[in-house]
């Protein structure tokens, strides 16, 4: 006992001692709690400090010694590696924020389910409340049974007289499916395949469309053209009618193309080339080709009536000076049959031309020209010979040109001479031009001799013609000189003679003319007279027609008169009617309807020209009245001299004269003798809308929205009812309950698929 007391005493003594010593140190030490009890609010003093955390490694270190302890130590280490220390809880505001965010998301999802319901209700024509139409009234038993009644006596009797149609029960049809499962799969695969192919093609097309290479496109175009031609030829064989239709379509396309200005030198490419053309010959050639194409495209199809003349002129007139120049687009155009646009001419255009000239021979249609060309060559040579002979004879006959008669022998000689004598450059050029232009050079076949002959002949002719022309000119000169020299007495005779000569020569040299003048329709008056023997009516018609033609001719002669007065044209021809005459006017008046009324101009008593004139004057005045005028704000004489005849300086004019807005076209401007008042009616304006209401941004749409009436006087009653139905219909006397979640399950709400509206409403 004593011991225990003693130790107690000692312990208390020791504590006091320790306290006293610790008091010596002035700092306050917080005593660590020896024991923790779970409390709701932790005192800040009871928090453990990190430094106090138990480090197991230290413990393990301590245990190193014995083998068993090593094992335990390892275990402990493992445990420590696996275990994780709980993180420090988040700060309160952050935690709250996260909580709110999650809450929002969840609620959004929850409410978002209603989006289609709301959106549907907004867009639908009308909504009727209450939504659920369940009749909550149950029939009472008695009521139900009262309906089950046997037939009355009368009904029975009636049934006997007229047995009611048996109510046929429709047996429930087994559901028929349009496709079996396999079929469906097959169908699906097929469609997938199609889609894939489509996408490939689309990709390909896209890729190809991005190719910028000109050459590629050119080749492509060519190929297409060829393909088209091939198809067309096939079609021609198979179905000529359709081919004809197609041809017409082509013709139309061509006509349309003629309207456009394509292939001119106005495009971007052409402009660029034009710049380069100055320095590059090749480019020049290209442009020339382009223009030639344009010419050929815009070449007017000839009327069948005038084809022969014009065709002759166009084809047969060689232009010597111009044909020398290979750069000349016009010449290229002329030679478009042969080489330049073989690519443009091999196709349907050729066919078209043939059609135009109504050639029936097939040789032109076939593409294999070789044999035909040979034939043609020989034919032409023959005809040439003939014509030479003719020329010679005619020359012989025409005594005036005796001096220049060149018989065929001479001609040949001269050809030889000329060949030798003509300077080399000129010849070259000519040959070149011939090669370029001739229609029938076929070197591949190997009839070069003929070719040579033809070349020679043609060149010879040209030379000869040149010669003749030169000689004529020389002769003329000489004659003139003679005339000048010789006295006046001889003059007339010689003059006439020379004139004759020249005329004849010119006749021969008609081809030297550059271009034919516009052909005019010419009317034979004699023919008109011959028709006079016909009925008067006919003659009348003809007369008027002739007049029309004459005026047309006149117009063409005058040139195109662009100024058109509509009044001159919209003249309705008066129709004379065989109306009855009243008895007051005439007694014997049973006229046959067929009898022609004599078209005597009635002496119009009231005919006053000034009625028209004054009306027109009135119209002019009206137009002027509405036209705003310039406002002159300048003060005359201010800063400069004023008075009559003094013009204000330019600066003043610019500054002080307010320009009136440009004249607006009046409604009656082109209407002839009609005046339409242009006014703004303020009384009407009150009724008119001056603003475009909200969802519309264009006047057109707004006006379209109010275009149709909705009243039942204008549209059928059913449509009227539909149009005026209110957007919300409520059943009177019922409680309208809020929607419940069953609404979400309804098919109509689930199927709502106007995503734009959904998005819009979700945003709100």
């Amino acid at each position, binding site marked *: 006992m004593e011991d225990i007391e003693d130790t107690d005493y000692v312990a208390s003594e020791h504590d006091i001692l320790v306290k006293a010593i610790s008091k010596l140190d002035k700092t306050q030490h917080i005593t660590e709690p020896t024991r923790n009890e779970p409390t709701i609010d932790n005192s800040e003093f009871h928090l453990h400090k990190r430094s106090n955390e138990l480090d197991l490694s230290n413990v393990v270190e301590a245990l190193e010694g014995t083998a068993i302890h090593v094992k335990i130590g390892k275990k402990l280490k493992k445990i420590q590696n696996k275990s994780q220390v709980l993180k420090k809880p988040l700060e309160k505001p952050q935690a709250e924020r996260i909580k709110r965010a999650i809450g929002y998301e969840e609620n959004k999802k929850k409410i978002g389910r209603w989006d289609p319901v709301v959106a549907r209700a907004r*867009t639908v024509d009308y909504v009727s409340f209450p939504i659920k139409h369940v009749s909550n009234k149950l029939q009472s038993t008695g009521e139900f049974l009262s309906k089950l009644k046997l037939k009355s006596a009368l009904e029975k009797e009636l049934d006997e007289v007229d047995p009611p149609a048996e109510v*046929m029960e429709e047996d429930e049809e087994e559901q028929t499916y*349009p496709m079996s499962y396999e079929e469906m799969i097959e169908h699906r695969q097929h469609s997938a395949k199609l889609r894939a192919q489509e996408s490939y093609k689309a990709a390909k097309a896209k890729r190809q469309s991005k190719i910028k290479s000109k050459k590629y496109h050119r080749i492509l175009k060519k190929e297409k053209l060829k393909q088209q031609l091939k198809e067309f030829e096939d079609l021609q064989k198979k179905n000529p009618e359709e081919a004809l239709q197609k041809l017409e379509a082509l013709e139309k396309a061509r006509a349309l193309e003629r309207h456009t200005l394509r292939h001119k030198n106005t495009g971007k490419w052409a402009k660029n080339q034009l710049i380069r053309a100055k320095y590059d010959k090749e480019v020049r050639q290209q442009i020339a080709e382009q223009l030639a194409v344009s010419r050929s495209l815009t070449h007017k199809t000839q009327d069948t*009536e*005038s084809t022969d*003349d014009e065709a002759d002129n166009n*084809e*047969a007139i060689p232009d010597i000076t111009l044909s020398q120049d290979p750069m000349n687009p016009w010449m290229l155009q002329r030679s478009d049959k042969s080489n330049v646009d073989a690519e443009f001419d091999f196709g349907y255009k050729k066919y078209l031309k043939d059609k135009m000239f109504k050639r029936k021979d097939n040789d032109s249609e076939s593409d294999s020209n070789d044999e035909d060309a040979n034939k043609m060559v020989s034919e*032409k040579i023959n005809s040439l010979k003939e*014509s030479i002979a*003719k020329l010679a004879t005619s020359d012989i006959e025409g005594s005036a040109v005796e001096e220049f008669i060149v018989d065929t022998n001479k001609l040949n000689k001269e050809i030889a001479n000329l060949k030798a004598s003509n300077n080399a450059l000129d010849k070259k050029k000519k040959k070149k031009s011939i090669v370029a232009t001739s*229609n029938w050079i076929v070197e591949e076949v190997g009839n070069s001799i003929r070719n040579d002959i033809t070349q020679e002949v043609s060149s010879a002719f040209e030379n000869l013609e040149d010669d003749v022309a030169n000689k004529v000119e020389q002769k003329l000169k000489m004659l003139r000189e003679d005339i000048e020299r010789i006295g006046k007495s001889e003059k007339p005779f010689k003059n006439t003679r020379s004139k004759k000569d020249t005329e004849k020569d010119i006749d021969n040299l008609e*081809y030297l003319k550059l271009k034919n003048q516009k052909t005019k*329709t*010419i009317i034979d008056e004699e*023919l008109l007279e011959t*028709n006079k023997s016909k009925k008067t009516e*006919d003659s009348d018609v003809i007369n008027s*027609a002739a007049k029309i033609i004459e*005026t*047309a001719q006149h117009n063409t002669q005058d040139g195109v008169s662009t100024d*058109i007065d509509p009044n001159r*044209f919209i003249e309705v021809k*008066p129709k004379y*009617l065989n*109306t009855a005459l*009243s*008895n*007051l*006017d005439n007694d014997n008046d049973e006229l046959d309807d067929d009898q022609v*009324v004599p078209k005597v101009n009635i002496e*119009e008593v*009231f005919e006053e020209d000034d*009625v028209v004139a004054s009306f027109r004057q009135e119209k002019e005045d009206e137009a002027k009245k509405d036209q705003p005028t310039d406002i002159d704000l300048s003060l005359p004489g201010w800063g400069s001299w004023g008075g009559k005849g003094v013009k204000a300086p330019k600066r003043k004019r610019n500054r002080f004269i307010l320009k009136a807005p440009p004249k607006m076209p009046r409604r009656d401007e082109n209407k002839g003798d*009609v*005046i*339409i*008042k242009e006014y703004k*009616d303020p009384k*009407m*304006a009150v*009724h*008119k*809308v*001056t*603003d*475009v209401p909200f*969802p519309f*941004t*264009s*006047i*057109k749409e707004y*006006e*379209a*929205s109010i275009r149709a009436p909705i009243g039942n*006087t204008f*549209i*059928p009653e*059913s*449509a009227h009812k539909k149009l005026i139905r209110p957007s919300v219909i409520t059943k009177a006397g019922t409680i309208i309950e809020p929607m419940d979640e069953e609404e979400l399950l309804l098919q109509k709400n689930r199927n709502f698929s106007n995503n734009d509206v959904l998005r819009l409403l979700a945003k709100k």
Partner: protein
Amino acid sequence: MNLEKKKRYFETDPEVSKTDANQNNNDFEVYNIKINPKSLKRKPSHFKNKNDGKVLKKKFSGKSPINPEKLEKHSRGEGIDHNNVKHPLHAAKLKKRENKLNYAQKQAARSEILLTEQQGSLVVEEGVKTTSISQKTIKESVDIAAATKIFDLKLDFGPYRAKYSRNGRHLLLGSAKGHLAAFDWVTKKLHCEINVMESIHDISWLHVETMIAAAQKEWLYIYDNTGTELHCIKRLDKILRMEFLPYHFLLATVNEYGFMSWLDISIGEIVSHYNNHLGRTSVMTQNPYNATLCLGNSKGVVSLWSPTVKEPLAKILCHKTPLTAITVDNRGMYMATSGVDRSMKIWDIRNLDGPIQDYRLRSAPVDLQFSQKDMLAVGLGEVVEIYSNCCTQTVDRPYLRHRMAKSINNFKFCPYEDVLGIGTSNGFSSIIVPGSGEPNFDALESNPFQTKKQRKEAEVKALLEKIPAELITLNPFDITEVDVPSMKEQMEAKKKLLYLKPKKIDYTPRYKNKGKTNIARKKIIKDATRKEQIEQAIEAKKHLNLPTDQNIPKQSFGVLNRFVPKPKIKK
């Protein structure tokens, strides 16, 4: 000669309806039906083999197709492109509305099937002209009920003016010597007959057949159908001509001194009153399309007037001589005018263009009148000639001709009847003009068989739907258009305000006036005339028998063609 029996609306003819049905059957049109996924899914199984006592279930193949022409007739023009409306909700709503309007259009086209009556006509043998058919023959070949519509009234009080009420049931006669009579001309039941002891210059029914307006020597009087004087309107004096505008409830008048006035008979107020400065003119008519008045003067000018504007809305120089008569057709498409120069012209009054036709007659017409089916009656002294289809094409001879022994004062076609009533110097005569009237009537619009109650209902309804007088303009659809100039002004004013974002608005109107610009019009004219000239030239050449041997194509030698001898052109 074979005269077709006229079909009246009250005569049901089973044959006609049968043929009608047949026609309808033949009128089927083939439609291209788009294949949509729905139609792929369900293949209709029309026939079932299980036929043992069970009803064949046929699938409803949908409504019958509508004739596209009829559909086009009821079209109200291009609709809204809802893609241009940005707001998706409104776009959806507008689309729905558009669908409804389309439904209305289709429904209207479908309901045309209810218009069963057909227009009457005269069928004659070959070689016989319709003009040779007299009223006597018509009377012999029609049924008894129709035959009663041909009658003559011999009255003693000088030249008579006649007017039918809007439903065509009642007739009003007023003579220059003061005789005023109103009666149901079908049953010949007299409403009233009085002598006002003054000259009567013009008469008119008001909105119902119980009210009559008579322009007497001094003032305008209004009587009821028993002849009781209801009003004497002294503000309207010395009136020469009157026109009643039924939708506006306006009685439009012109007096001796050229004063024009519009009297609103529903409120008894003069809406507008001004002088037209044209002098005395008794040639007046209304344009039913836009309710403007057409006034013809002694200078041959027709001017169009509305109550709000004190100057003519438009003037057309029709003739070089004084005008004798004007009439405008029911749809407001054509106007016929005639002058002292014995000419008669047809004008496109809607576009204010023309003349479309120019006829020369053998005497100056006294009166002109268009029927509901665009037949034109022309009064020449004591002969009435009726021309059918004379506006769009030039006719050679009249459709009918009726000669009387008395001179014509005025005439009117009876609405919804094939009857022309003629007021003459000594009485009134009524003749039948087959095919002149509209065979189908809209009972809600004007009903010839109106009962008293219906009349009262219609009166109230018409009053509710009264159109204000300000809306009388040349273009009746003005009201459906946005007032662009004032809108622009407003927009400009708004733009000047600070801190306000201006609206972006596309100002292009719904109807651009295509082809009405100067250049385009000129071009059109030019092209048309050129084409005509070319055609005429070709025609003329045909007449002249020009040698056509030029057409023979010659063999071409290419370059060597120059050696081919040329035929010389005759000069």
